[in-house]
């Protein structure tokens, strides 16, 4: 009785009640209980936070009155995800995309982001794309679903959502049409809700889901196992894909590199097997990563010892290119219900004629490519006839070597004498570079070098050819001709040594030079020397210079 008398006295001062409730951590339902003391006196249990089957249970007397307005004290919060039982999805999914034997509990719930659902309030149903389900639960699919796959399935909303709509009378807007501002307004409720619902399954990380269904193959797995497969029945097709180890090691961050990365990366035929399901779930994104722990598990024991065991949770990129080498191509087929592109009546537009011209031009491209290739070969022969570096063997061209030496000396003294030699070569088509420089004016090598020097952040540029000729003004670079020769030789030597180490072809060598940077771009024995500001190249500039250089050298 003392409690009720205290409670009655507190209720006589509603402003005090409000202040205390605001300051406390009580939940909204306790707030409702405070407003409705009849719950206490009649021993009617407070409304449940979550009802698995709404409507089957008798509602409390206070809320079951016909025609009564929804109780304001309690409102089911809008959750960030909608939990759908797995069996509901399996019943709706077509058999060509689902596995026939799934060893996951069908009562398990799949958490689907609310924003990915199209909720029909009237019918209390929702639509979700296959891609969304695939992102949430890839284990039930036999084939990867592309993120742009627009196939949908419809299912009845789970009990919680139906109860929320029924009790609160709230009209759930289509999440696809909500604005970012609207979505942020429900965030506090979303963040509070999971702690309040006791029977909600906690979200499982992707790696745990994988380990439930598909154990990570260990090193004891037979090496001759067949690869890939749709795994429809899981009996005759294994669920792994073989990936070359070298490219993975090259992509590893430095802290995860093995003790001798080059020996492992360059070891021929070194491969590992990765779970196909882990790959499938990511392949549709164009990028695949695996936990470092899985990489370690897939390695033989002797190789594993070479890796640091520190950060096993780190994500390791697996090149998609390497995956697709052994990936079952039938899994990449287009969706079966895809309609072909619409055939439209032809309309002549101003773009039709250039399109036809380009088509004809490139239809003859293979014929043109052959002379280009031959011309390139001829260019290389010419390089042998006129060696630019002393390291080349003089025995290859014993009669031409002295001539080359003379020409090299001449190149150092006079640039103008080299022009006829340059013109004798097959001049590249500089008009194709107009799009790089966004200009209509006719281009030649001189203008190209000048425009390279006008790229953002670049102060000046100079082109050196394989025969030692220069285009540009070395004085603007602050270098003498001999310094340019030295830089080019140095860059080529560095590039060659780096390539021998197995790191591929190096494009740019940058040196600090009198508080400025001098970068050397080399391709073969030709290249650009570029002086630029004391900062890395601005985005796109380095790529453009490489493009220009490759075009000139082709």
């Amino acid at each position: 009785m003392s409690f009720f008398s205290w409670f009655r006295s507190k209720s006589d001062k509603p402003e005090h009640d409000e202040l205390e409730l605001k300051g406390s951590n009580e939940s909204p339902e306790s707030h409702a209980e405070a407003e409705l003391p009849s719950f206490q006196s009649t021993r009617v249990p407070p409304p449940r936070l979550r009802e698995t089957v709404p409507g089957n249970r008798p509602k409390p007397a206070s809320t079951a009155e016909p025609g009564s307005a929804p109780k304001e004290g309690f409102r089911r919060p809008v959750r960030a995800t909608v939990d759908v039982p797995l069996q509901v999805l399996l019943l709706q999914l077509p058999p060509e995309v689902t596995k026939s034997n799934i060893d996951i509990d069908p009562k398990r719930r799949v958490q689907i982001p609310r924003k990915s659902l199209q909720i029909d309030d009237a019918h209390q149903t929702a639509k979700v794309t296959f891609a969304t389900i695939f992102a949430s639960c890839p284990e039930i699919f036999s084939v990867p679903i592309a993120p742009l796959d627009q196939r949908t399935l419809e299912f009845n909303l789970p009990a919680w959502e139906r109860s929320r709509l029924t009790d609160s009378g709230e009209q759930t807007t289509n999440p696809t049409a909500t604005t970012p501002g609207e979505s942020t307004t429900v965030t506090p409720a979303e963040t509070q809700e999971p702690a309040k619902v006791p029977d909600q399954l906690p979200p499982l990380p992707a790696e745990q889901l994988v380990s439930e269904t598909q154990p990570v193959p260990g090193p004891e797995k037979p090496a001759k196992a067949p690869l890939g497969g749709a795994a429809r029945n899981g009996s005759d097709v294994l669920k792994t894909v073989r990936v070359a180890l070298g490219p993975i090691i090259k992509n590893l961050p430095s802290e995860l590199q093995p003790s001798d990365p080059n020996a492992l990366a360059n070891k021929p035929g070194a491969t590992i097997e990765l779970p196909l399901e882990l790959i499938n779930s990511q392949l549709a994104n164009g990028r695949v990563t695996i936990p470092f722990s899985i990489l370690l598990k897939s390695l033989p024991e002797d190789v594993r010892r070479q890796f640091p065991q520190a950060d096993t949770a780190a994500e390791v990129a697996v090149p998609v290119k390497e995956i697709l080498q052994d990936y079952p191509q039938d899994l990449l087929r287009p969706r079966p219900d895809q309609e072909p592109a619409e055939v439209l009546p032809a309309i002549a537009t101003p773009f039709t004629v250039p399109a036809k011209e380009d088509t004809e031009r490139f239809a003859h491209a293979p014929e043109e490519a052959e002379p280009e290739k031959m011309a390139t070969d001829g260019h290389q022969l010419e390089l042998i006839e006129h060696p630019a570096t002393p390291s080349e063997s003089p025995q290859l061209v014993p009669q031409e070597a002295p001539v080359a030496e003379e020409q090299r000396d001449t190149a150092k003294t006079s640039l103008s004498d080299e022009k006829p030699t340059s013109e004798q070569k097959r001049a590249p088509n500089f008009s194709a570079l107009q799009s790089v420089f966004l200009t209509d004016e006719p281009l030649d090598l001189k203008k190209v070098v000048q425009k390279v020097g006008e790229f953002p952040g670049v102060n000046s540029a100079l082109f050196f050819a394989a025969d030692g000729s220069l285009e540009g003004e070395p004085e603007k670079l602050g270098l003498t001709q001999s310094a340019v020769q030295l830089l080019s030789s140095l860059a080529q030597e560095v590039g060659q040594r780096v390539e021998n180490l197995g790191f591929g072809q190096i494009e740019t060598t940058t040196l600090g030079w009198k508080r400025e940077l001098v970068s050397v771009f080399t391709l073969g024995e030709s290249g650009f020397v570029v002086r630029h500001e004391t900062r890395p190249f601005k985005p796109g500039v380095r790529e453009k210079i490489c493009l220009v250089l490759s075009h000139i050298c082709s």
Partner: protein
Amino acid sequence: MPIINYASKEIQFKIVYYGPALSGKTTTIAYIHSRLPAAFRGDLVSLATAADRTLFFDFLPVDAVILQGFKTKFQLYTVPGQVVYNTTRQLVLRSVDGIVFVADSHWDKIHEDVESFRNLEENLRKQHLSLDEIPYVLQYNKRDLPEAAPVSYLEFLLNNRRRRARSYEAIATKGRSVFAALDAVTQSVLNKFMQENHLLRPKPARESATAARA
């Protein structure tokens, strides 16, 4: 929706080149500008940053065909591909009539292609539009790269909607399939416009100009 100017008897269609950063959108539109006769095109307007990256958009107006006495014009836009410029992309996408999605074929850029395509869908959705309604084609650019991904994989990633879109293997720096992709999306846009407005097939601008002279 095209802009119809009854006073000047002009219909303007808006074609947007969409795609990830450095996929070749500006190069594509620059090639188109360089190939079209000066009489049919305006100046190429390019608002770029100091780093020569597209800041706002590139713009190229092109005179096209005659539709029921109306002179049609195509306005070609590109969008900045960098992720941070999404607001600009949304602005450029307003009232779009056709889209050329320029994808980078390089293995390392495929993820950006997918992200950009999703971004395109999302930005259209915010304007209550969808790729089901707007004509679009896919231009798989940089096919000359040695590290280009196979077309089958690109198709799996980007051309897996219910209605298959036309796709082109392109090399924008050389002009390969640039006009073919533009021609395809242009024809789709014109066909859609005529279907919606019950118009007859148009006459090409050059033919109509010749007929007018005669």
